[in-house]
């Protein structure tokens, strides 16, 4: 690795200020599992890594009447096994559990997982000067794109790699972003940005800003959720396609629905046409196959990834089916 300075911040102010002062050559590090990989790969040059690990107040899971607050430093292992999450937000626990391996989950944090960079093999290789690294070409447009996007992609065809983000989207989470002086928060759907909004980043963080916590509203009784992930091997794989569904069911009727897709778009992807279609339906009458087809109706597959259209439709159908038979 090229040399960098590692600085342990003790306060948000210190962390933020150091980051701003060294911008654009500073990065925050929490667990570090993704960022160290990028540095080793030679696609990221950093002068200073500002560690958030010492920040107080960012490592807690706090349950209240309004919902759950999860500090950005909480590890994926904790999220996967925390009782309140497993019981109340199963999609989130399942998504966290599906990430990588126990070793990665023991160190990887919520914030880090949301902010991880794409896995696109052109992005990750220094031998391709791709759009996302400031180049002029997307090498996935015409070929070599079996893992790439089928939805919401125009010039750059990455898929967002975070499982947790997809579950949080379906759970209507809010992301809290902090800097030296203040916090701001936004629905998680607004935290992520697609390449045509900002080619060089996947989220709205400005220099000096970091994710400090995520808030999830308390679901009403009758709400159930699930996260399904299709992979190429049985374990330790990013999603070929993944689905998070949250349904509120009252009197055998779906009163609220939120479906989110992963592995198929540059951002965790909502499909509001599906949510509207499901809302108001009696669970006995739901045609899950039709719902699945509806989820992918706007799909624009590339040369090698049309299988994702059928795969995603099946995954949506399966996820909805599982929830309505609960």
């Amino acid at each position, binding site marked *: *690795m*090229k*040399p*960098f*300075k*590692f600085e*342990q911040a003790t306060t948000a102010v210190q962390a933020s200020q150091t980051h701003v002062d060294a911008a654009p050559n500073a990065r925050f590090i929490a667990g*570090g*599992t993704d960022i*160290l*990989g990028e540095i*080793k790969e030679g696609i990221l040059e950093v002068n200073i*890594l500002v*560690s958030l*690990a010492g920040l107080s107040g960012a490592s807690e899971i706090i349950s209240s009447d309004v919902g759950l607050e999860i500090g950005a430093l909480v590890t994926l*292992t904790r999220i996967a096994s925390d009782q309140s999450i497993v019981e109340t937000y199963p999609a989130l626990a399942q998504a966290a559990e599906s990430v*990588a*391996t*126990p*070793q*990665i989950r*023991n*160190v990887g944090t919520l914030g880090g997982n949301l902010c991880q960079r794409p896995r696109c093999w052109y992005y990750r290789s220094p031998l391709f000067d791709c759009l996302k690294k400031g180049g002029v070409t997307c090498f996935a447009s015409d070929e070599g794109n079996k893992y790439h996007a089928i939805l919401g992609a125009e010039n750059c065809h990455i898929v967002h790699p975070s499982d947790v983000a997809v579950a949080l989207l379906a759970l209507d989470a809010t992301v809290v972003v902090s800097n030296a002086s203040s916090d701001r928060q936004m629905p998680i759907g607004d935290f992520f940005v697609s390449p045509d909004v900002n080619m060089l980043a996947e989220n709205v963080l400005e220099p000096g800003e970091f994710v400090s916590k995520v808030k999830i509203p308390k679901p009403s009784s009758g709400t159930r959720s699930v996260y399904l992930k299709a992979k190429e091997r049985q*374990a*330790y794989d990013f999603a070929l396609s993944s689905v998070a569904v949250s349904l509120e069911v009252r009197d055998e009727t779906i009163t609220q629905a939120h479906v989110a897709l992963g592995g198929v778009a540059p951002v965790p992807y909502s499909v509001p046409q599906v949510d509207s279609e499901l809302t108001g339906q009696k669970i006995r009458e739901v045609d899950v196959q039709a719902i699945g087809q509806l989820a992918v109706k706007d799909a624009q597959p590339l040369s090698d990834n049309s299988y994702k259209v059928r795969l995603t439709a099946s995954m949506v159908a399966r996820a909805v089916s599982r929830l309505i038979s609960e």
Partner: protein
Amino acid sequence: MAQLPISYSASITLNVNGTDHQIEVDHRWTLLRVLRDVLGLTGAKRGCDRGECGACTVLVDGDPVCSCSMLALQVGGRQVRTVEGLGDANSLNVLQEAFLAEDGGQCGFCTPGFIMSATALLESNTDPTEDEIKAALVGNICRCNAYGRIIESVKAAAKSEAS
């Protein structure tokens, strides 16, 4: 004359297998590099340096981590345990004996990593099911694919500990 790139170093105290070590580290050095090149503990292996194979697995505060994917500077003040802390070839522990009896390895390169992951598993779960064993060890790749024997070894170790 070409310039040496500026690098940063720090003094840290690393607790490994119960002993404190005062060492100078370059900020870039991973925990794996420090264990192997500074402390001479070569049990943890560099299989990929990317956290994708688990050959470098050690325990930090009892949890298995890929030491290649942590900076030494991230580990100060925490307890690191490596395979060297478990025993030597003349006195294998129960887990190691079980691996020997069940032939839980072939080339052995993945073995220290598996031993550490399995140690953490059995310390928190004394009677794991086969599914729990698989879930706990899935982050360790064995390219010889001795997976069948490895699972049997961990089962045997759990049984031995129980009796």
